[in-house]
């Protein structure tokens, strides 16, 4: 049976039309942000430069694509329609009449839908893993930079140990099917996921220990929410069955947090060593504030600029790491629609078909580019004051 094709112009139009919920949300959010940019602080200042606008735009585009993935994509990313095997872009699927906008891959799945669904995986794992890495890096970097001495020597040695590992080797050792049979990933997850709970507990404790009314509410919330998420992620024992993570995703998650928290640690440590010589820290010390109060409420807020910039860059870097994992077929399921796996599958067949390779590569590149542009203009804006 012969497939029918639509022209290149119709393909472009079709792609643009499929993204309609994304365009609407983009226009709404960008328009509102632009109109109220004076009142939005650092985020509003981003809209003063074209680089910032482009960066925010690309990031929001992928965010909304991930949110509306089921509406945007015409097909299920895992379903194979045999007749569409290696179909060229613009081929019409005979039964539903819908179009394989970017063609079909070697397993006859819709490349466009896979690219759209791939954004979901990236936009869940990359920011979350970066968040945990930030928590671990901050909680360990603050005391290392503030106290110095032996604790600094020990923590820095450990951080350098991890940093001396080439990332790829680390992944080959930590993200294997074999290691999931051992308790190692769960032990690491148990350790890493403790850090946010510790961080917020200490944060509220140091601030509100003289005001029990606030303290009890905030500590109670931290422990309940933290414990709930902790039980769901580490032991897969969420009583409400809302938080659930597959063992292989947990493995990836842990490996990515492990690989990127030493970097955060080094940055936080350097910032703290610089900031602790300031007058306001000396003033707090003279007032008799506890060391952890000074670290969390005097030093950390003043280190936020570089940390926000680093977080943006780090989400991009984590996206690249996830792609690397997918490219080497580590951790993620072989039929998973994430961009790295798609690039791996397509790059083996470049000699015969190039169309399955381009959408995931361009998607990954544009998302990381958006984050880097965002980080660059954030840095520029925070340098101004």
């Amino acid at each position: 049976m012969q497939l029918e094709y639509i022209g290149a112009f119709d393909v472009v139009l079709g792609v643009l039309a499929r993204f309609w919920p994304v365009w609407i949300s983009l226009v709404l959010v960008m328009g509102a942000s632009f109109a109220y940019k004076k009142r939005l602080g650092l985020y509003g200042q981003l809209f003063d430069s074209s680089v910032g606008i482009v960066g925010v735009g690309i990031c929001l585009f992928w965010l909304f694509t991930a949110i509306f993935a089921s509406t945007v994509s015409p097909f299920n990313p895992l379903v194979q329609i045999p007749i569409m095997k290696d179909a060229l872009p613009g081929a019409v699927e005979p039964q539903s009449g819908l179009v394989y906008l970017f063609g079909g891959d070697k397993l006859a799945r819709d490349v466009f839908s896979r690219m759209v669904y791939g954004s979901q995986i990236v936009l869940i794992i990359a920011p979350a893993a970066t968040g945990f890495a930030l928590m671990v890096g901050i909680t360990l970097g603050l005391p290392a930079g503030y106290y110095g001495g032996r604790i600094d020597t020990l923590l820095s040695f450990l951080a350098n140990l991890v940093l001396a590992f080439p990332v790829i080797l680390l992944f080959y050792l930590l993200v294997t099917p074999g290691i999931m049979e051992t308790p190692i990933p769960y032990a690491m997850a148990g350790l890493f996921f403790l850090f946010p709970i510790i961080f917020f507990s200490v944060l509220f404790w140091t601030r509100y220990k003289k005001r029990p009314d606030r303290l009890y509410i905030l500590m109670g919330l931290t422990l309940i929410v933290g414990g709930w998420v902790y039980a769901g992620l580490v032991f897969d024992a969420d009583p409400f069955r809302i938080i659930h993570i597959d063992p292989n995703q947990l493995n990836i998650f842990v490996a990515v947090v492990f690989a990127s928290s030493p970097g955060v640690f080094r940055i936080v440590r350097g910032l703290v060593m610089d900031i602790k010589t300031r007058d306001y820290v000396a003033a707090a010390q003279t007032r008799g504030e506890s060391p952890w109060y000074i670290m969390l409420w005097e030093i950390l807020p003043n280190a936020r600029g570089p940390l926000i910039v680093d977080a943006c860059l780090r989400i991009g870097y984590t996206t690249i790491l996830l792609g690397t994992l997918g490219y080497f077929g580590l951790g993620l399921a072989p039929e998973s629609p994430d961009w790295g796996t798609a690039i791996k599958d397509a790059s083996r067949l470049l000699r015969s078909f190039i169309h399955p390779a381009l959408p995931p590569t361009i998607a990954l590149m544009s998302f990381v580019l958006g984050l880097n542009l965002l980080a660059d203009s954030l840095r520029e804006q925070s340098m101004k004051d």
Partner: protein
Amino acid sequence: MLSFILRRLGTMALTMLCLTLVVFFLINLDPNLKKLAISQTEMHTSAEQLENWLVNHGYRQNFFSRYGQWLGIVPKQPVTDPATGKPTRRFSFCNDPVEPTFSGVLQGDFGCSTKFKTTVASKLFPALGATGILMFWVLVVMVPISLLIGILAGMREGSRTDRTLSVASIASTATPEYVSGVIFTVIFASWLGLLNGSAASASRGITFYNFTLPVMTLAIYGIGYIARMTRASMVEVMTQQYIRTARLKGLSFGSVVVKHALRNALIAPFTVIMLQFPWLLTGVVIVEVMFRYQGFGYTLVEAAGNNDIDLLLGCSLVSVFIVLITQLISDVGYAFLNPRIRVQ
């Protein structure tokens, strides 16, 4: 200075010891050993036979004694042949000692590769040589281009050249090797047909035709980063008093840049270039797998995929050594280049 280097070398040895111990532990996890036994024996062997294979090849000895043997501080014991009861070699394809001897990494014996059926040394060092050639060409391409971009961008901060080049370098840092590799292959190999999409033939002889794509792919990711660092350094130098003095005494802009700014602006990128090596190492793995170039990265992936214990240990030792030695060189070199820095 000498005591600084010695202390750093001491830390380096300690780090390598810790890291190899961690790698040794992770590779020798029970599921990994089972995988190795399955791949080394014939199909459909029973669990008992697999266990026998592991015992016969010495994988069931005490963990620390095996690590000591690999390191060369515990004598390597030959295994006894179950049929004859005599001591015999572990693997027939390697020159393992028949008598207990100290034969580990410290003595220069890297062990035995189960995947390639040869000694690790005879597989690893040619691969390192091949990667060395690739790295050399990458550096030859990457360093001049990135320095040039950085200097041109940082020369006049905020100008149109600066904006364009900055966005271009940001774009290049957003392009990991597996993305640029695919895009370049599509453009230069599939559409234009100018270059070869595989570098498998490069191990027999390097030509422009088969070696350009890997070098280009590997260089592009680093170019943006080094260029941005050079730009930042150049911008800082251009605001210094001595540059204003040089301008005010009537020197032309070009000669100020070349004679006064350049030398001071190139100190910071030196560190960055040296610290790029660990990043290049990951890139090398991706590029060598993508373009099928038989180098260090390819060997690493093969070793990891087949759980080739000694070869993977050798690979990790080499890569960790490269990371640490480049850090040391960058610190020492920085102190030499910048007289304002003194190491204690």
